[in-house]
């Protein structure tokens, strides 16, 4: 069942991998939210001029400007600085996590990830999913 417009959030993913963007779209839709997908810093910043998402998943390695620099731009912009940013990276190294925190990111997720990790993160920063969505991936 789709969520009501009030509880439906807009979640942005910035990743140069089409596959990651597609997986994120499937997860976010399954949770009943909307997704905005962008593949580069330029696209992301351009989209953020038009859309203020409720949560941003940001890949650390992007063509042009990297995710950490985009995060700093977001955190320096009064209109969008309140939006939580989650860094996605292919490395679980402490250095990346620290750099993410320093750039203003709220959290860090290491790829590959499980849908459950994304769900928990979405619920932490956007509130609980619609009860109809609960246990959506529970195995029989």
């Amino acid at each position, binding site marked *: 069942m789709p969520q009501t417009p009030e509880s439906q959030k807009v979640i942005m993913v910035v990743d140069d*991998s*089409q*596959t*990651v*963007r*597609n*997986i994120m*779209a*499937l*997860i976010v*839709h*399954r949770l009943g939210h*909307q*997704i*905005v*997908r*962008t*593949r580069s810093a330029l*696209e992301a910043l*351009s*989209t953020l001029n038009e*859309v203020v998402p409720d949560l941003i998943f940001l890949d650390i390695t992007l063509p042009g400007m990297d995710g950490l620099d985009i995060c700093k731009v977001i955190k320096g912009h009064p209109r969008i600085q309140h939006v939580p940013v989650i860094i996605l990276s*292919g490395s679980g190294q402490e250095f990346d996590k620290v750099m993410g925190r320093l750039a203003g990111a709220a959290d860090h997720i290491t*790829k*590959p*990830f*499980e*849908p*459950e990790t994304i769900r928990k993160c979405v619920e932490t920063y956007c509130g609980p999913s619609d009860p109809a969505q609960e246990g*959506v*991936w*529970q*195995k*029989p």
Partner: protein
Amino acid sequence: MAEALVDNVDRTPETLSPEAIQQDMALEYDSMVFLSAIEQLAVRWSSSTLPTSPALALASLVDLANRVVEFVEQLPMAKAGDFSLQALISRDLPNYAQLGLQHIQKRRFSREALERTVQSAATFHLISKDILRVLNICLAINVKAFHSSEMRRQWKTVYAGFLAHVAKALQQVDPDQRT
């Protein structure tokens, strides 16, 4: 400009049993975990820190292909149909330029056997195309395992995008580079 949102077009509702819906949900979850993992293997080819040599690319491709085969083997319909890599390749043998049964050991691609074939650098692209063909068939089996036609449609699109990315990355491998 951001990509269009995933379409939410209402389609004719299907009548699926609760069991079928639950099975689809479980398969969707497993497929997401699986795809997220193999995407990280594929990313190696795009990494600027790694040389795009045939030897490294072949090792990654074998790793990826064996993960896919392992995943498909666990699907109920594959189990029921007694799926095996050997049977799959035997059935499709005339369509492979280089790939043969000699490249399979213990139900998986053998990196050593493939390396022997790829000793001639020019064969790298031929054999990688053959392996991509196998991946395509395996992922199509995964898609068919969904009961819901909407999920089949979604996953067909997602896997097509993934395979296109892998194919493009493999094309960038320089057969003349040695490591």
